[in-house]
């Protein structure tokens, strides 16, 4: 019963939350949601999670709190006891992220979502990213619109910007990456089983430090059971990350 690529990715996202304790986990998108729920059902039982709207829910689906959007923005985000996993249309080597628009901001070639909560998230609490298709279109030299703040821009903006800035990791369909190099450039932490360094290099515009790369861990039997039988019995995960 060997794990699929999608299941490896779910476990890699779950690992983002290891050690987070009693904070709000805010996963955006299917694989991040599966990962956060898996973490809560296994090694991080104290994580708080919303239903995507105004309710905080227990693992049993019981409402345990009220978290409307205004409370989220007025207190949850600035208070900092939160870890968000956002998507990204573009990410650069220092962890700047774009979900706003492609091209020049004053007249974009393609309008996307807008910056949404990305500036506030990245400047206030731990932020990770999920990229289902690792490609040179996503991993670019320079993002067109800095929505999520990367390490170079946080440093330029000064101590108040750096105080709580913490771009933790990027999980993709190919591997797990962080910014724990002396100049906070992206490096490979682990590649998923079967992925070669050459694949990552070919799918990334900038150079990725591979000096300390390992292999992403396989889910254990209990985790596989939870993913397959409890969290995603319809295998929607395979649509986002094909086997």
């Amino acid at each position, binding site marked *: 019963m060997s794990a699929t690529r999608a299941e490896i990715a779910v476990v890699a996202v779950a690992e983002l939350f290891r050690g987070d304790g009693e904070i709000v986990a805010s996963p955006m998108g299917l694989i991040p949601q599966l990962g956060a729920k898996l973490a809560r059902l296994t090694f991080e039982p104290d994580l708080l999670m919303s239903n995507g*709207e*105004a*309710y905080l829910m227990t693992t049993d689906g019981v409402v345990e709190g*009220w978290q*409307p*959007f*205004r409370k989220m*923005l*007025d207190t949850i*985000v*600035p208070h900092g006891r939160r870890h968000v996993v956002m998507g990204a249309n573009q990410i650069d080597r220092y962890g700047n992220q774009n979900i*706003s*628009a492609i091209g020049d*901001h*004053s*007249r*974009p*070639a*393609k*309008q*996307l*979502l*807008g*910056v*949404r*909560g*990305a*500036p*506030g998230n*990245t*400047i*206030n609490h731990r932020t990770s990213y999920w990229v289902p298709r690792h490609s040179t279109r996503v991993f670019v030299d320079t993002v067109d*619109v*800095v*929505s*999520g*703040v990367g390490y170079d*821009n*946080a440093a*330029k*903006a*000064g*101590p*108040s*910007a750096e*105080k*709580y*800035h913490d771009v933790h990791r990027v999980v993709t369909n190919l591997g797990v990456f962080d910014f724990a190099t002396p100049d906070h450039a992206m490096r490979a932490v682990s590649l998923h089983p079967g992925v070669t360094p050459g694949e990552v290099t070919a799918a990334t515009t900038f150079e990725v430090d591979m000096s300390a790369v390992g292999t992403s861990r396989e889910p254990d039997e209990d985790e596989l059971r939870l993913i397959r039988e409890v969290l995603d019995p319809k295998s929607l995960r395979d649509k986002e990350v094909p086997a």
Partner: protein
Amino acid sequence: MADKRTTADEVAAEIRDGMTVGIGGWGSRRKPMALVRAILRTPVKDLTIVSYGGPDVGLLCAAGKVSRVVFGFVTLDSIPFDPWFGRARETGAIKVTEYDEGMFGTALSAAAQRLPFLPTRAGLGSEVMRANPDLRTVRSPYADGEELVAVPAQHLDVALVHLNRADARGNAQYLGPDPYFDELFCLAAAKRFVSVEKVVETAELTAGGPVQSLLLNRANVDGVVAAPRGAHFTTAVPDYGRDERFQRHYAACAKDPDAWPGFVDRFLSGGDEQYLSEVDKFEAEAA
């Protein structure tokens, strides 16, 4: 005691060229769509729209009513992007003030509290600072010396919001799980209009929900519009959820320049009675 009941068309007639109009709700959730459609029926133009944007922004852009949008996002929720807002941006038809979601609320809070600005951390290091060159930072006078974004107050000429219930005097109630920012929109505005699913006697408000659901008191409301299904096709739970089928139809027509005039003719060219009856026919055809 004042009876503030009015109509959507009378509300729209209060809006003048160049005004700054705040629109409540969030994305495709509890938007005052009947009031938005009433604006579409007037000749008003050059509006600055301040909104956690959804199809309200899209429809106003489609009708050429908008010169600027102040926003943190524009989304239809179940459909990521609004096609008309995208087109307005990509053709350079509108200017924008793009804020982080939290900064947007901070700007309304500053106006609500009659403060020139409020400090926040959100925005530092991001495009928000570069795309809005008038934004300034402020330094803490205390020992920390922190330098933060000074978000300027976002005053509104008019606020338009849609709630579930109100009385004729303007006490207004939401019955869903989230108040969104509708109270702040009203507190930031000179003229405040609320449309509701149903106008009821005051005593019925607290009979229908906890006292905490009384989001607006009458001192913050100038006009009350009875507009059943007035948030359609966005959600107004618990009265109704989003009309996903109709929203998909809106988005498909908005994407297709050949299909759009037909959508306007059928749904947007008459009054609200025509709109709702055409929506009913559309649903019956699709069923």
